[in-house]
């Protein structure tokens, strides 16, 4: 039986749905469980028989979390640092990635590897030099200081990922734009970036999430008197003898919320919305 093209496509659609539903369940079930747990009091979590749905749902965990130990302030600090990090990484990353993608110069391959070197060393061991540097520069416990530390680690990520996307855009398109009278910078802004929107958006999301959730540097480079960020606040709940599941999961749910918002905003850019006339002739 020769399948028509239409039927083949339907088959693939069904397969795709199957894959997506399976992966979706795998991905979302633990999140769902986290959310359900956050609505239970601790006595209902640590039980001999597992309670699936909360028999006595309560928002107490959220209330306690929000009221406790300056969470709103910590959220704000995280938001500021994340926003700054994304901005710097994108600005610096786009220019660097573009150059590495388009131009050939002798140390190019080595330079690409060089950017990655800082990520190849475990962050825990880089703490001390960075800690000292920030103290000496007077940037300890400041938004700028933490942003500086984050961008040092996330710029290589931005460059590598953005370069990957820039590589997939044919250079002929910029040549065409230049023939039409654009400067090189203009070509980047008017031709390359719009085409690379999915890639830029993906990079922005990655940077934002990494900065938002980062814990180790936030712990070591901030204090509660200064700009403590929320992942530190979350870890503070895990004591030597305490592991309050309710509070911890509530914290997890709260933490996802801003990211979800950010992602929803950026979603449209991730979808291929532009129809681009291909280079003809």
């Amino acid at each position: 039986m020769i399948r028509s093209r239409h039927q083949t496509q339907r088959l693939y659609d069904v397969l795709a749905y199957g894959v997506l539903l399976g992966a979706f369940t795998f991905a979302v079930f633990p999140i769902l469980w986290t959310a359900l747990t956050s609505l239970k009091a601790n006595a209902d979590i640590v039980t001999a028989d597992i309670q699936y749905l909360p028999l006595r749902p309560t928002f107490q965990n959220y209330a306690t979390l929000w009221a406790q130990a300056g969470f709103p302030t910590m959220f704000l600090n995280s938001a500021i640092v994340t926003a700054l990090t994304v901005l710097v990484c994108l600005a610096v990353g786009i220019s660097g990635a573009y150059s590495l993608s388009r131009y050939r110069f002798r140390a190019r391959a080595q330079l690409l590897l060089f950017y990655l070197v800082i990520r190849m060393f475990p962050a825990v061991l880089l703490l001390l030099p960075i800690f000292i540097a920030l103290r000496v520069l007077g940037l300890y416990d400041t938004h700028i200081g933490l942003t500086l530390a984050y961008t040092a680690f996330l710029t290589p990520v931005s460059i590598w990922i953005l370069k990957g996307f820039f590589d997939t855009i044919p250079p002929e398109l910029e040549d065409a734009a230049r023939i039409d009278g654009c400067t090189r910078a203009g070509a980047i802004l008017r031709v390359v970036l719009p085409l690379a929107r999915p890639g830029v958006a993906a990079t922005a999301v990655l940077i934002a999430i990494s900065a938002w959730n980062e814990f180790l540097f936030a712990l070591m480079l901030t204090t509660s008197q200064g700009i403590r960020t929320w992942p530190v606040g979350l870890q503070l709940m895990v004591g030597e003898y305490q592991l309050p599941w309710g509070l911890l999961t509530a914290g997890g749910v709260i933490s996802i919320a801003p990211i979800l918002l950010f992602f929803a905003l950026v979603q449209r850019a991730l979808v291929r919305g532009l129809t681009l006339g291909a280079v003809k002739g």
Partner: protein
Amino acid sequence: MMRRRDFLKSSAIAGSGLLLAACAPQAVAPPGVSQSSAPTPAAVKPAALTGTVSYWHTFTSQSEMDGLAKVTKAFKDKYPNVTVNSENVPNSDFMAKFTLAVQGGGKPETTMISSVRLPDMAAMGGLIDLTSRVATWDQRQYLPDERFKDATINGKIYGVPSFAFVNWMYYRADWFKEAGLTPPKTFDEFQNAAIKLTDPSKNRFGFGMRGAGGGEGALIEVIRSFGSPIVDEKGQPAMDRQKATDALRWFSELFTKHKAVPPSVTNDSFQQIMTGFTTGQTAMLWHHTGSLIDVSTALGADSGKFGTLPRPAGPAAHIGDVSYSYNGMSDPKNADADWAWLDHWAQPDTQITFLESTGYFPSSTKVVEDARVQKNPYYAAAIETLKFGGPAPAFAGSSNWGLTVVLPNFQRVLLGEIKPEEAIENMMKGLDKAVKG
């Protein structure tokens, strides 16, 4: 056109210039040379003390934070011109943050110190010698010498005890009654009870052994109960191979041979053994006084379901470790006010306030004689343990030895991967390395 090489060179120079400016490390006092706080003159008037006191702690739970708040308020009432700035540090990362501060600057004026961490913190030059202050202190009479033992290194005192964690045992009084067993006082009785109370069909196990993080402590206690010390008075390795092997064999066979321990033992840390006990899976639990409130809340304080006992006595020794939480100084910018804060924690009123919030056992003998402690039936086991119990052996590097040598080898014996003989061999080698370097 600028040559590429010159470009790279000039940016490298610009970059390194900034780097060199950034990399001047702080001078760190060599270990062993302790920095003393100046001895206090005649008692300073409370109103005369001013300024701020910084304090690092690892309190986490609601009750602990509540206790801290009350204690801080009482301090403020006493010393109206001094402000205490408490910094809450996540417990698992405390040493990392402290180490960073020692090397790079930013040590707190005062800090909470657990007995396990004290040797390491002192060895890296992070703590101030308090001996002279303690010697002339009026609370000294209520704090016998052995309470300072964990905080004394080479005759110098580095911390003031604020509360205690007394190792004891919880047991399911109702199960024991049901089975007609008397609560165990010796290792033999303990093993017997554990085996009798194990019933896999009811998902019941006699003993909730801790085989993950922290479990090395219990094993070390058992080893000492069999008559093998860890280090001698001079701090040199002194493990007795035969006795230690017997101890490890006895302890691990509770799981490997008698199956009286839940199968999840090698991943069971504090959270898991507590869950096991409070959900009715295990009959006996080895922990300390700090968890009394949690257990009471879960099982009901007067329900008759649980009771407390001193740890059972081993064939050669009766070990019941008492570890104190200390407060010490790290960078006393405001020495007299800092000392006032440390002194405050040892005051009987403060200790009672804290006891009421957290249930943590007081360090001051005066408070132990208080009715609130004496009348509480559960505390009887702690009071009795204080008669024979003392600090666990701790030396610079002991935490690391416990976590990276003792624990994995213990787990491998439990898993059946190696025999107790080999495990003890590895532990002794590791101990040598830890002490001698």
